[in-house]
């Protein structure tokens, strides 16, 4: 394997979590890259759904937006947006929801709404979009986020979507149908909920990275699971596939669009 970036490593690590028979509701950005890498490597039959209503899409390049034409042209079907959320997500027909976020707390709750108070935020973020119900209904949720003490925080500024709420079964008691965040993939390794407290703890590190780096990147006292795994570096095939995908994507997004006047 040639040297890879942390983004590449986390994308590969996230892709490996996806099974060939999964139905996966995909968020834009890093999750979209991971899901398509899985499809192009070990999971060719995976069903990818984007919230724009494209089901079973097989884009040749990564979409910049959630609704690029490439997603519609390569989909098994395209349905209206209310159907995606009602008939597929809310009805329990999604195995995996794959999300990103600006902030995450120790119970896997996510913030993508504001930094600071809601009425007068220091940073107004895009908002929740599809995430509240993806987080609620998918049988399991994977989250991808680069870790810093500003993003992995003790206290969220706003809860845009539910992880395990305050832990210890609070999510299930609140009536959330889905299983909640089963894995958080970050740029040092992976966190997963403790089976009892539901607090996220360190379960795996990238090969060559120490526990101290993980602790320094997380804004709460990070616990370490009894068993700590090592995530193997990307294989040549994984890395070549991802880089080719990214190169095709960059080229496609820079292509000029001409409107005949």
């Amino acid at each position, binding site marked *: 394997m040639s040297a890879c970036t942390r983004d590449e490593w986390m994308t590969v690590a996230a892709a490996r979590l996806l099974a060939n028979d999964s139905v996966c509701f995909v968020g834009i950005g890093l999750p979209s890259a991971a899901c398509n890498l899985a499809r192009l490597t070990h999971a060719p039959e995976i069903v990818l759904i984007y919230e724009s209503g494209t089901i079973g899409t097989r884009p040749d390049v990564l979409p910049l937006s959630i609704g690029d034409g490439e997603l519609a042209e390569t989909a098994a079907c395209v349905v*209206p*947006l209310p159907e995606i959320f009602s008939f597929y997500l809310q009805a329990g027909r999604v195995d995996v929801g794959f999300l990103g976020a600006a902030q995450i707390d120790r119970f896997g709750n996510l913030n993508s709404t504001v930094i600071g108070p*809601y009425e007068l935020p220091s940073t107004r973020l895009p908002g929740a979009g599809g995430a509240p119900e993806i987080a609620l209904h998918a049988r399991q949720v994977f989250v991808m986020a680069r870790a810093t003490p500003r993003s992995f925080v003790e206290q969220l500024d706003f809860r845009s979507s539910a992880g395990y709420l305050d832990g210890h079964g609070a999510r299930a008691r609140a009536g959330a149908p889905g299983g909640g965040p089963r894995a958080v993939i970050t740029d040092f390794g992976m966190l997963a909920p403790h089976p009892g407290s539901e607090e996220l703890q360190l379960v795996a590190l990238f090969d060559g990275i120490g526990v101290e780096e993980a602790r320094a990147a997380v804004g709460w006292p990070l616990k370490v699971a009894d068993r700590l795994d090592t995530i193997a570096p990307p294989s040549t095939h994984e890395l070549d596939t991802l880089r080719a995908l990214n190169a095709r994507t960059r080229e496609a*997004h820079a292509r000029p669009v001409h*409107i005949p006047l």
Partner: protein
Amino acid sequence: MSCQHLQLAEAIERFVHDGASVALEGFTHLIPFAAGHEIIRQRKRDLHLIRMTPDLVYDQLIGMGCARSLTFSWGGNPGVGSLHRLRDAVEHGWPHALELNEHSHAGMAAAFTAGASRLPFGVLRGYIGTDLPAHNPNIRRIACPFTGESLAAVPALNPDVTILHAQRADRAGNVAIDGIVGAAREAALAAKTLIVTVEEVVDALPPAMNGIVLPHWTVAAVVHCRGGAYPSYAQGHYARDNAFYQRWDTIARDRQRFLDWMDHHVLGTRDHRAFLASLQTEATA
């Protein structure tokens, strides 16, 4: 109401009044940019803007001072980052304060569906464990009358005017839409008045199959406007200009640069055709 074929300026002048609630829908695809620009040219004010994903067209409307409030569920530049004019309005009240009515996508979809059905509210199993209901009094809980289950309820959205862009209309005013449709159908039928700009006007629409058709008596006005979704896209006609979406980040980041750009390309052009021509001049300069 019978459908009329109008010029864009006339349709906006006649149907979009100051203070109106206006939904320019289209989920990434078929966003009615030309109509948004015409609203800016006519300096409409005090609008209640409704749209699931505000996108660049609402960044422009908000930055040009057209909006009083925004009902939305995700306000970013997809895949790029922030809508800087939306952020400036929320964080600093520039050019003036903006009231937010914030939902999730599923909540907005339920509200449009209820609106299209002329029901008072939409219902969903949603919002559990989020802070959104604490900041939006229009997200409430109701008990299912049959099972007692607690569900989320949102009031129906019935915009005064919904504006869509579509690939085709026929001479009677029937409108056909292909590709990603988002909540366009629901927003269209929820509206008191529906305006549709189209890439082409044809004698007969292609067989509908699973495409969406809005029948002529639901449409107030059809406007022939080629390229009317640019820099968004019209499947089968032109692609989304992802490079423009990336470029917008630097244009919108700075107030003066934004105003200069709008002055030059929108206020300084008489219609959408001239807008597109001015951008092509810029691209080749």
